[in-house]
């Protein structure tokens, strides 16, 4: 075996070992719990059962799953709608200022997720900054109830994951060959048509990557619904959390977790296929 062929395997080994030891093995352990019965006070009784998976399909829990998917999808769409123009503007800015703008886009990541989420509580609560500002501007009605609503949960998710989407879309936009747009315009297409027929289709892989990212992170999120939803809007992440930490039903929590991971893997595979397909097409176009 040549040195060149072995080197990549060697270089990958520490990373692979890390992933296997601290991600694959724990995930498989959790998955294995799903096939056993719960101990009444936590832990697992090693009696084989499929009941936990049957419970996941129970309408009560299926409803929580679907509701989480709906909230995650709303967050993804909103994040894309906000991130696309922002990424577009950044990619059109002078070369020198682009890194500065990107720096500001990811700046919120420098603070802790919890702190950023608590900031929304300070802003949105009934006696919070937004309501106080409205009062100063002359609003005299009942203070607005913005916190502990589904809207607050979605706002928190969009806010926290937006930088990922901006980066994903920007990375595709910035690699786009400007000559393609020029060609489109030379051939008589207006700016709107150029955008819809050339820019947008070519940047869809970035949009998909960003969107799937937000969806996957949102559907499993439990901190934001707990803090901004006041415990009134339960998402599947909260359900998993509750099974492990309050109901002490580890096997059922594991089954829910497995269903969640399966959903995420399917979505990520679809997204990877779509991206490969799109870049394959583009490679084909270049050859033509």
């Amino acid at each position, binding site marked *: 075996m040549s040195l060149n062929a072995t080197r990549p395997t060697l270089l990958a080994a520490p990373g692979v070992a890390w992933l296997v030891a601290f991600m694959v093995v724990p995930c498989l352990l959790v998955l294995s719990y799903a096939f056993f019965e719960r101990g009444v006070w*936590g832990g697992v009784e090693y009696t084989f059962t499929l009941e936990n998976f049957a419970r996941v399909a129970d309408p009560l829990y299926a409803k929580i799953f679907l509701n989480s998917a709906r909230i995650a999808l709303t967050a993804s769409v909103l994040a894309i709608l906000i991130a696309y123009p922002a990424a577009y503007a950044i990619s059109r800015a002078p070369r020198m200022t682009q890194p500065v703008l990107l720096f500001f886009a990811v700046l919120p990541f420098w603070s802790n997720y919890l702190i950023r989420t608590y900031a929304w509580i300070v802003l949105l609560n009934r006696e919070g900054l937004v309501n106080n500002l409205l009062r100063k501007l002359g609003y005299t009605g009942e203070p607005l109830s913005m916190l502990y609503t589904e809207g607050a949960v979605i706002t928190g998710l969009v806010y926290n994951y937006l930088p990922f989407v901006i980066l994903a879309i920007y990375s595709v936009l910035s690699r786009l060959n400007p000559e393609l747009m020029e060609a489109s315009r030379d051939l008589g297409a207006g700016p709107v048509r150029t955008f819809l027929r050339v820019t947008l289709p070519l940047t869809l892989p970035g949009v998909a990557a960003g969107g799937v990212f937000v969806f996957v992170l949102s559907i499993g999120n439990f901190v934001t619904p707990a803090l901004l939803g006041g415990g009134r809007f339960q998402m599947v992440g909260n359900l998993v959390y509750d099974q492990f930490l309050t109901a002490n039903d580890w096997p059922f929590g594991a089954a829910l977790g497995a269903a969640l991971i399966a959903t995420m893997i399917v979505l990520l595979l679809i997204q990877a296929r779509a991206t490969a397909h799109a870049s394959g097409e583009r490679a084909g176009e270049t050859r033509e």
Partner: protein
Amino acid sequence: MKAKNGLAAGTAAAALLAASLAAGAASAADLVISNWDGYMAPDIADAFKAATGLEIEVVNHATNEEVMGKLMASGGKGYDIVFVSSPFAEILNGQGLAEPIDAAAVPNLANLYPEATTLAYDPGNTFSVPYTWGTTGLCYRSDLVEGTPDSWMNLLQPSDALKGKTTMLATDRWLIAAGELAKGYSVNETDPAKLDEVKTLLIEAKKTLLAYDDTTFYSKLVSGEASLVHAWDGWCNYGIGENADIKYVVPKEGSDLWIDTIVVLKSSANKEAAMKFIDFILDAKNHAWAAENILYKVPNKAAMDGLDKALLEQYPNMAMAPADFTKYELLRDLGAAQKDYSRIVSEIKAAN
């Protein structure tokens, strides 16, 4: 071949890391104690060492369920003493994990109120020692709520003015107890038909809530976000301390009697030291720390008798006589019915 070696090296490194993490977790202290954050004096380790020469290490748990999960998984190993609410002490005893309290080694047991030595889950304090006790009721802003709330229905079916301005505890036993007490049922009810009625009542109540809140309900009262909240008496006191318009009431339908206890684990290697620690806590001055600082009633007559009268005036529920609240029903271990309670809580939380 090389690749395989590389992988083996990686695995060895991971094993080494795991081993060093495990070594880091093993403690040199004589006693490992798990308690809620802030539930003991911050300098307890130094004070205990000065008194006995023994080292303690305090670890925190956020909920009963969290520490129970760990104890069940490890058979109690890794801890010498845990602070848990009484139904969980009952379970630890039922599972054979609790060490009998050696009364001869804990002379300060004599400081306990008589009511604290005849508690239904453990008469004679054979496997647990009560640390704090109290009631669960309504905590409210007397300047924002019209009239004086006196019923659980004030919380569960609030007047229009209070809609969206109430919070409830989300911890399963207390959430369900609010509905059970309102209906006049036992807080340990297991009849499915009655629990179904309670569930319906609590799902209706959810629509009128601002939020479920186990930890910051009193600050929502202080800020004015909420006007009436479901609260443990001691936590209502934190609100009262910041705003004298905040008041606490036990509804006319009654309350549960909650008790947080100290349990020594059978797996402890240092039971003699553990008994010394319990005796240290039950010392009038040390136990009074909990009353003065966490504003919970403590079942220690000597400690309560020594409290500053001004404290009792500021926080009237601190002055409740033990006979007046030990008449309420204790939360008991539900056994297999605990699963039904978990399921009901999931259904309430999933309901829109």
